[in-house]
């Protein structure tokens, strides 16, 4: 006689088919989380930075936050950055005019290939106009800065931005190698402007030399970054 035949087989514990797998899943997840928690704690903050608020739109053109007709402060007043229309990288935020060199070009925040194809780029490793430090602007010598060589000492450089109007006066020019770090001082603690482009003009190919044009601050609102 086979064991168990005297007793009717029960269907027994149908809920177990749902309950136990769920419990196994929870226990397994706890074990995995427990083992990986040191790594998660270390990289958790990095993971937050690794994701955006929404998926990127690569076909969208970078914003232009500069409006030609808007009125902006142009004196020596102080404006807080929170009330100023500050640019994000890649955005057009102004324009640069050097009348004596027939330069009138859009101004972008960033000096990558995209920005320099469309105008003059502000190096993001330095400061924006009004920050009281060095502003470094670049342009291609075959496009927007092809006449920069005509700018001379005493000429004015007008930079119109989304948050203020600035005027600088050219104090000198210099031709130097791109690797010559004495050609520019990015640590100066007073507002100053440096424009640069490849040199000589009209050459084909890339040359190691650059034309640097230096200018001092004349007028324009100061940016306040303090949060007291």
């Amino acid at each position, binding site marked *: 006689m086979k064991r168990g035949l005297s007793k009717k087989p029960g269907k027994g514990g149908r809920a177990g088919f749902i309950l136990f797998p769920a419990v196994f*899943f929870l226990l397994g997840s706890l074990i995995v989380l427990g083992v990986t928690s040191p790594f998660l704690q270390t990289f958790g903050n990095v993971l937050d930075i690794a994701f955006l608020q929404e998926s990127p739109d690569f076909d969208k053109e970078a914003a232009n936050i500069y409006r030609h007709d808007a009125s902006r402060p142009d004196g020596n007043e102080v404006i807080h950055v929170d009330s100023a229309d500050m640019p994000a990288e890649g955005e057009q935020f102004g324009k640069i005019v050097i009348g004596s060199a027939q330069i009138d070009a859009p101004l972008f925040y960033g000096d990558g290939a*995209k920005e320099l194809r469309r105008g003059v780029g502000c190096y993001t490793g330095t400061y924006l106009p009004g920050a009281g430090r060095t502003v470094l602007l670049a342009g291609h010598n075959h496009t927007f800065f092809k006449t920069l060589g005509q700018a001379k000492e005493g000429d004015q450089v007008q930079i119109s931005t989304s948050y203020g109007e600035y005027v600088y006066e050219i104090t000198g020019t210099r031709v130097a190698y791109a690797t010559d770090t004495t050609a520019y001082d990015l640590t100066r603690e007073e507002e100053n402007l440096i424009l640069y482009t490849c040199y000589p003009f009209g050459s084909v190919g890339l040359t190691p030399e650059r034309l640097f044009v230096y200018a001092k601050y004349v007028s324009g609102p100061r940016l306040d970054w303090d949060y007291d």
Partner: protein
Amino acid sequence: MDQSRPAQPETARKRISLLLSFLLSLFASMLALLLVLQCTLLNEGFLRARMQESQYATHLLETLDMELASYGDASGFDEAFFTSVVSPERVQNDLNQEVARLYGNTSAQVDTAGFETHLYDKLLENIRARGLEADEQTTSALQYLAQSCAGVYESTVGLPLLSTLTPLLHKLQTVSLIGLGAALLLLAITVVLIMRINPSRRRRLRYLLYADGGAMLMLLVPALVILFSGKIERVGILNKALYGLVTAYAGHTVLYLLAAAAAFALLWIGLFLLRRHYFKKAIEAHERHKEHKRRREEVHRSLQGKPF
């Protein structure tokens, strides 16, 4: 029944079986994850297919065209010139080389020198066609331009972090194969133990079903969470080509996890139907036993009190 095995209290047997079932679910999900790893991250064909699907080469070419056109703006060459110099075939060939190098199937790198020479020749050809003089200063400037553009080409077409990833992938392959072997062995041992502890076929299948269900959930739930969280689409990669590749790669990896969960689901259905089959057979056997017992009692009653 095995008379040599000491009798175990039913509760203890159930607890041990549940523990073994839990371990089995862990080993099964580990095995499935390692198999998914073999089919995705450790599979060269998977990366190639994702590159094809995300049009990686096409987007790279767009980036290259823009970067080189910017060099053109700085050096007196127009955009059309650089667009004609960089061919889709060259980019695709170099990409194929990079993928093969990533998986250790070649040591050849992106042909930067070939690109530089090709570009320099084209630059010279262009300035001569424009009637410009190719003096020493100009040829030097052109060489510098070709060298700089070749650097851009290499950094654009070359796979990021390749020299770091290649040895890591090799180590991962070794670890994965060892892990697969270990998971299979542990899985087999656990199954055998469940069979040994539970003489009843239905009981054995019950614990196998628990394990299978647990393994299925361990794959299904994280895959669904990743899929519906939208994290993949929001990954912070601002390079169009790389973004497309990474999102396609991650998306398909999640699909492989879901396929593994589906395989466990099918197995669950099979085991469940088998258990139900055994249950029906047990019911039939019980009914036959009851009938047999009833007939014996009838015969016994009819024989009682009859004189010989």
